[in-house]
């Protein structure tokens, strides 16, 4: 099991492994899987745009959508994944109660993702986003089987 921390990304080709990331709040977890190359990748980014802290983006590109997503996809290509075959699943983007705008990172994280994927012609196959819950996202390298765990309940995504 490869644990992907907040502001981190990992790709994997080991057929016995799974990638997992815990405690997605307003952050977004993006799981990708190529069923032919049997390559999986997982990103846990926390903010939409790297322009607020370019030096942080250099040190940890996975902190932001606009630097983390290219890193996720490129790393998967290096392991033999092919863009057209990648299955993309998304979770997170939660909000606090009565969010007034100052704390709407979850919504903006999700919009940033949609925009970047759309520009690159990548479709989202499944998603579980929004609400006020915390989620754990897991993807199996061999099968691409993806699950969401929240409040002790696991559901396939």
């Amino acid at each position, binding site marked *: 099991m490869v644990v992907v*921390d*907040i*502001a981190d990304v990992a790709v994997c080709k080991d057929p016995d492994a799974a990638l997992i990331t*815990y*405690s*997605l*709040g*307003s*952050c977004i977890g993006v799981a990708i899987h190529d069923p032919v190359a049997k390559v999986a990748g997982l990103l846990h980014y*926390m*903010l939409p745009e790297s322009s*607020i*802290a370019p030096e*942080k983006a250099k*040190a*940890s590109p996975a*902190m932001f959508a606009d630097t983390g997503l290219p890193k996720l996809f490129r790393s998967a290509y290096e392991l033999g994944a092919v863009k057209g075959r990648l299955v993309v699943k998304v979770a997170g983007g*939660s*909000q*606090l*109660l*009565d*969010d*007034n*705008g*100052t*704390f*709407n*990172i*979850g919504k903006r994280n999700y919009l940033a993702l949609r925009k970047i994927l759309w520009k690159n012609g990548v479709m989202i196959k499944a998603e579980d986003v929004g609400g*006020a*819950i*915390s989620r754990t996202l897991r993807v199996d390298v061999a099968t691409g089987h993806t699950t969401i765990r*929240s*409040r*002790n309940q696991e559901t396939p995504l």
Partner: protein
Amino acid sequence: MSTQTLEGILERVGSLPPLPDTLYRLVGLVSDPSSTLEQIVAAVRYDQAFTADVLRLCNSAYFGLTRSVDSLDDAIKLLGTTKVLQLVIATQSRSMLSRPQTGYGLPAGALFAHSVGVAIAAQALGRRLRISEGGALFTAGLLHDVGKVVLNEFVANEYIEIAARVAREKLSFAEAEEQVLGFSHPEVGARLGETWNLPPAIVRAIRYHHAPLTCAAPDALVDAIHVADAVCILLGIGGGDDGLHYRACPEVMARHGLTESDVEMIGSEVISETKSVRAVLSSMQGN
């Protein structure tokens, strides 16, 4: 509805370790800006475990010192009182905050990770808002959720009812605790802080961290802990089953002129710093 009284619950706190003696003295001293280095060293000089912690900490890669530090005075002079003592306070409270809190769906280590995150976020906010304090931000951040340690088993017993009210009535988790149990984790934490004789400013920050507008007068420390907590909850730093079911108070943001980009900047600082602080803490004894 529970028939427990708050006093009854606090009496049953026997299972909770007392605040370590050295930690208790330190919290008082570092929270008081008029404390001197001599007073602080005097308070902790005879605690060997503490001294060992400080030296191990100072000689860790985190501080990147070129020569080895072998006395307490030396350590504190070299690195500054605040930095060293805060990390040591964190070490000393770790065993209390690291146990799993199953009522809240917090695995081992999660509450401590959240507490350290809030302590770091509170300091980042303190710098932004130019709050002058002598370590109270860090300490209050670290202890703000200590009530969860006490309330855990009661929340576990009533979890279904609390969760139902959160879902049905759009209550925050703390509001639902209060409705179902008669009191919430901030109030229990504040009462615990009073029995430990923590400084009143820190008790206030614990008590009002989810409801800063109910504090009698606007209080910068309370506000900073409220915002720091909201940022860490939002980012899922040590999050549990209560998830994001809390409110962030727009009035508090407005009265300090805090914006969306401040929230983002603080969040990114917290993530970068928490990783290195936790690496240091996990290399230390006591766990």
